[in-house]
């Protein structure tokens, strides 16, 4: 319900506004909102900070009488094409991939992990291709610059799709210009997680990767760090400690919360003191902290609720003017 009127911009701005969101994990509404954010928040630059692909496929079994799926702990049915479309939309809204299969195909998938792997490849790549196409339609011939980088959960298969676009910029591992005054370096790799995700690497390797990229930065005070992993021990990185079986480590009947961010990322922020550091990875650790002069921000993620969490960052001439968390 919009009761406020937006102020009209009568004079040109003397700052650059970045809208940063991250960890949308396949949520279609979140991606569509991300595209809309440039206009809605009057952002000059959009940055999607990684983990863009979903984690689950919801199989929709096509039986003679209806389509069946299992979602939110209960069975859902669709009898008409319209109901099926509604079911697929609901699945996509929650960051899952719908996939219509026959009962035989469902059995094969349930018994053959390799087939599930192949299916994931297919649906993730198809989805990202479709999204990139939407972004191209939206931003071609506009001044908005749209950066989409991968996160530790994203497979390398996506890199080719993301880098093929002539509108969307794939900034991974590069030093890119933002507005003629400021630059940005991006890294979707993260320190090792218990899940051993595609872009999980050891701290030493991460340190080398970051250092190689930062060697190219002439003026860190005008540079934005777009690092998926948050710096270690900053409250942007709190998560339950897990054992080898991925179960929470309990101490005194309660989960043991520990910092899980990257030491290498922290070291680089401490060493280079960039203009601002943008992070994701830990969805529930929304917040901003300062490391020296650098403000490090994790806008968090609520992709499964269809809510796009983000942060607007206003920068001008090497200064961070302000930042504002938003959730739309």
């Amino acid at each position, binding site marked *: 319900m919009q009761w406020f009127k937006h102020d009209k911009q009568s004079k040109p701005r003397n700052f650059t506004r970045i809208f940063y969101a991250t960890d949308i994990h396949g949520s279609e509404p979140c991606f569509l909102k991300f595209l809309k954010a440039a206009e809605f928040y009057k952002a000059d630059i959009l940055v999607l900070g990684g983990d863009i692909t979903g984690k689950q496929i919801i199989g*929709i079994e096509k039986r003679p009488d209806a389509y069946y799926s299992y979602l939110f*702990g209960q069975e859902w049915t669709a009898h008409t094409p319209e109901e099926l479309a509604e079911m697929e939309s609901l699945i996509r809204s929650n960051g899952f991939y719908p996939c219509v299969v026959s009962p035989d195909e469902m059995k094969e998938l349930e018994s053959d992990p390799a087939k599930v*792997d192949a299916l*994931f*490849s297919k649906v993730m790549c198809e989805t990202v291709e479709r999204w990139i196409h939407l972004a191209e339609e939206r931003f071609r011939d506009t001044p908005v610059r749209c950066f989409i980088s991968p996160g530790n959960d994203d497979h390398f298969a996506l890199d080719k799709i993301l880098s093929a676009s002539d509108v969307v910029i794939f900034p991974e591992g590069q030093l890119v210009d933002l507005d003629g005054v400021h630059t940005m370096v991006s890294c979707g790799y993260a320190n090792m997680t218990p899940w051993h995700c595609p872009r999980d690497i050891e701290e030493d390797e991460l340190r080398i990767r970051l250092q190689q990229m930062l060697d190219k930065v002439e003026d860190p005070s005008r540079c934005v760090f777009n690092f998926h992993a948050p710096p270690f021990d900053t409250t942007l990185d709190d998560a339950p400690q897990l054992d080898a079986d991925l179960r929470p480590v309990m101490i005194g009947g309660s989960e043991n919360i520990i910092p899980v961010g990257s030491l290498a990322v922290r070291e680089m922020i401490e060493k280079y003191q960039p203009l601002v550091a943008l992070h994701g990875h830990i969805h529930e650790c929304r917040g901003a902290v300062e490391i020296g002069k650098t403000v490090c921000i994790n806008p968090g993620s609520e992709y499964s609720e269809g809510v796009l969490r983000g942060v607007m960052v206003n920068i001008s001439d090497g200064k961070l003017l302000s930042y504002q968390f938003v959730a739309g």
Partner: protein
Amino acid sequence: MASNIPEVKTAHAPVSTQGVFRRTASGLIREMNMADHWMYNVFTLLVLTGAAQFYVWSCGEFPATNPMLGLIVAAVLVVPIYLAYSMLASAMPRSGGDYIFQSRILHPAVAFTALFALLVTEWYWLELSGFWIAAMTLSPLFSTLGVFVHSQVMLNLGAWFSSNWGIMLTTLVTNALIALAFLPGLKTYIKVQWFLFAGVVISIVMMTFVLLTTSHATFVANFNGFMSTFDPAHSNYYQYVIDAAKAAGFDPTSGGGLYGLIGVVAIAWFNLIWAVWSAMNLGEIKHASNFGKVNRVMQGSLAFGLLVMAGTMALLLKVCGQEFTLALGYDWFNHTINFPVQPYTSILIPIMGGGVIVLILTLFGFLTQAIQQSWNVFIGSTRLIVAMSMDRLLPDGLGKISRRFRSSPVNAILFLLIGGEVLALVFWFVPNLVNYTLSTSLVATIYQSITCLAAAVFPFTAKSIYNASPISKYKIGNIPLLTLCGAWGFIVGLILIVFYLVVPGLGLASTAGLVGIGVIYLVSLIWFWVARAANKRKGIDVDLNFQQIPPE
């Protein structure tokens, strides 16, 4: 579409159950599981301390109304409200609960005003916790021990804990200790909660056992014997309670009918509605987005609370006698008798039991519940402060999460503590101010009603979020179930608000009380607009925090 799709290799085999296929990817786990959540909700219903006030208050003010019926009606009225809250939680499982719901669905000014006023009254709740520990637990403990062991020192100590000094100092110390204990964050509380809950269960079991095994004659004899220690002039204190009430105009046939029923419901609301408080820390509850689980937890705590309160009330009436119980409530509420110890269940049960073990086990639960209540204020309120601070309506620093005390908003804790301590001192200097604690019911009902209104309009004003949530499938006819439950809660809330405003027996129908509440709301509203303007000057448009981006 992809024409040359590379193979995805996962480190572990994908998981499949009922057609749901997962790949290996990182994920987070919230701290409070459903058992913790249920216990937390039962605590918020105040089945011992708050209930002790219900027994005397409802009987004294609406004697012609069956209090058990009032409790049952209140519970029935609450069921759809819990449904609405569970559905909202499922759609927006974020810390800050009601503030998030209202600001995103209705308007931030409405949300901030309603919830900032609630924050102010949370200081009153801290005082109430101190009062319950001092006057409802420690005073009966030492007074009864004094009688049992014939110790004047104990009797004096019991009297001191029910004095203004005793209540003030107990409140100051309790607030400080709980704030200190909360510094390490929610996980410490979750560990302690099991111990605190065990105390409540032991107390309930003990109370039920004593009530079931004590005859009316035994109670009368024990009660008279106990009270004669404090007031030798009235050897039959039992009859004195009844006579004093009658002499003061007590009419057991008054406060009945629909008026009386709504009145008792309004008092029971003080207990049975409060499972909604857990919405403030939805961001830390596992499965908060699972409507079914959250709803079962909320309704389950309501059923437990209703059973305990209605059962205890019925047994009290049987053992103590209806005429006496009603008169006792009247004397308590109208200060007809200057009771040497407050006549709550925390003293009536030990008197019935007549032994030190019954005394200690009964009061242990009252103590743990009062301690939890103080902790509860810090838990929910700090989450609310952080949410408001994130939206830049409260100063940034207030919501900062401490790096030293992980996951703990230290400044918010200090803010609450300082306010609570100041108010404790004010209460000491101006004792009558304690009457304004009753304003908490009005302020709470206002904010809860607004949340219900938000629930009612949610499917129409925030369609994209609503449609993306699993609750969108629940409809009656073509009307969303959320709309029906929200509208129900809003209407019930409005009726209760009118009662709080006009019925003197509910404690608010006084000029000073109403002015006080009005000032709180006015200050809250002004604060919102000032904060909004101040942010605007810094180039921050806070309005954007509350608006949904249309996905198309």
